[in-house]
């Protein structure tokens, strides 16, 4: 028996109007993502990667095509149904975004609440779901901080006092606390030192395997894609020029742009 598709993009596209003309930021993107799969989206700046991610996470609406998600039974009319995100209410989408999904922003500051403690950041999603027991919230925060290798002694400190790598890990803990099935990541390792990057990647790889998380990771770093993702999608000028098995796309690229991308990487 085939496991059910978790997320499905069908010719999804988003246009911005520029001087009265529509300009497609991304167009005609189709793929199916299954539970536990990691999909990397690569391409240069301006290729539409982040727009695509925002479409998938329902932060933007599609101007053509659609994105479907297999919602949990309590939100669906029938269990395991793929629901068009455009047909869901704002309240349902909000609920989805803070329980079943995670979104790791490129800049941790955009994904954290900087004016409350690290522990409160981790507990926030649980509180939004109605958890009020202080001991329980603190226990969860401590256990998640430990899991993402944060010093639990820093639980009461504001995230502003954390280093960049720590903020990124805090952001990940904050997202995973509700045990989402799908996590979106926008350049999760960009701007971090390579040693911090390696640690974060290794941690992500383990968490994804352990929790059977599905993920869509936007990155311009092909090594990150190779390490984390089974599949990848190469974008250029808003279009998917190539997609497939990560190692095949990287080792035997077919499209001119992918070949250029792969051959431009410096290997230390």
């Amino acid at each position, binding site marked *: 028996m085939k496991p059910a598709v978790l997320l499905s993009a069908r010719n999804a596209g988003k246009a911005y109007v520029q001087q009265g003309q529509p300009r497609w930021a991304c167009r005609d993107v189709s793929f199916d993502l299954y539970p536990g799969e990691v999909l990397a989206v690569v391409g240069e700046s301006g290729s539409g990667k982040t727009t695509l991610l925002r479409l998938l996470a329902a932060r933007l609406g599609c101007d053509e095509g659609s994105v479907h998600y297999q919602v949990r039974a309590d939100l669906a009319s029938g269990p395991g149904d793929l629901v068009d995100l455009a047909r869901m209410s704002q309240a349902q989408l909000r609920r989805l975004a803070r329980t079943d999904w995670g979104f790791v922003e490129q800049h941790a500051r955009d994904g954290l609440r900087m004016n409350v403690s690290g522990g409160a950041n981790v507990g926030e999603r649980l509180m939004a779901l109605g958890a009020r027991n202080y001991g329980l919230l603190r226990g969860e925060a401590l256990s998640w901080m430990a899991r993402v290798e944060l010093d639990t002694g820093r639980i009461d400190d504001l995230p502003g006092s954390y280093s960049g790598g720590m903020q990124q890990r805090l952001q990940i803990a904050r997202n995973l606390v509700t045990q989402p099935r799908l996590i979106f990541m926008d350049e999760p390792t960009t701007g971090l030192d390579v040693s911090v990057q390696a*640690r974060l990647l*290794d941690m992500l790889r383990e968490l994804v395997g352990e929790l059977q998380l599905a993920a869509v990771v936007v990155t311009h770093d092909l090594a990150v894609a190779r390490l984390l993702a089974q599949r990848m999608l190469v974008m250029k000028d808003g279009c998917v020029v190539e997609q497939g*098995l990560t190692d*095949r796309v990287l*080792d035997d690229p077919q499209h*001119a742009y992918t070949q*250029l991308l792969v051959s431009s990487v410096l290997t230390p």
Partner: protein
Amino acid sequence: MTALIEALALAKTFTLHGRNGLQLPVFSGINLSVQPGECLALTGHSGSGKSSLLRCLYGNYGATSGDVRICHQGDWVSMSNATPREVFEVRRRTLGYVSQFLRVIPRVSTLDIVADPLRRIGVAADEARAQAAQWLQRLNLQEHLWHLPPATFSGGEQQRVNIAHGMITAPAVLLLDEPTASLDADNRRVVVALIRAAREQGSAVVGIFHDDEVREAVATRSLNVEQYSKPVASRQGSTT
């Protein structure tokens, strides 16, 4: 007896778009079929396309034409038509590959790297680590190295990690790219014994073995890739 892996009229040509679409034909018209207990040695000079063929069999390179079929849990899977997800599943359960070079994951210990393929097929962590330890022991990798990431290991040590990683799940189809290239005589013998054991357990093996002695010890047949390297493209070109 039915084969576990087949290539049907397999051809590979690289197209280099950065060089005005330059075509580099590697091989064409390869048919092969390997049954349980057999080991097919790929031969030919350097650059004749042995490794490319092995990569095509693994699905790491896409076939330009023709197909590779793998017998996966009783069904034939066409590697040309399979979705990435299906290829992944075939690799996880059926198809093992020992590459020439170990792709190191930062920070992950040798023991965990070797145990990982078992974890992926649902073996519990402790059991997977115990089996990984047995493999490393058999391959004479010193115990004090097990808990270190293999990034700083010697070539021979990395190769043994690679072999343990590729063979630990006893895949039904095993692809080996020069598994003994940087090993000393003692360790070569261990690897030869492991390959023969895999054959006896019914694996179909396809490999590149530069060392004649190793090849004679493990292979049941050989296939010279050179004879398929005559480029189809130029032949077509001459008729037009």
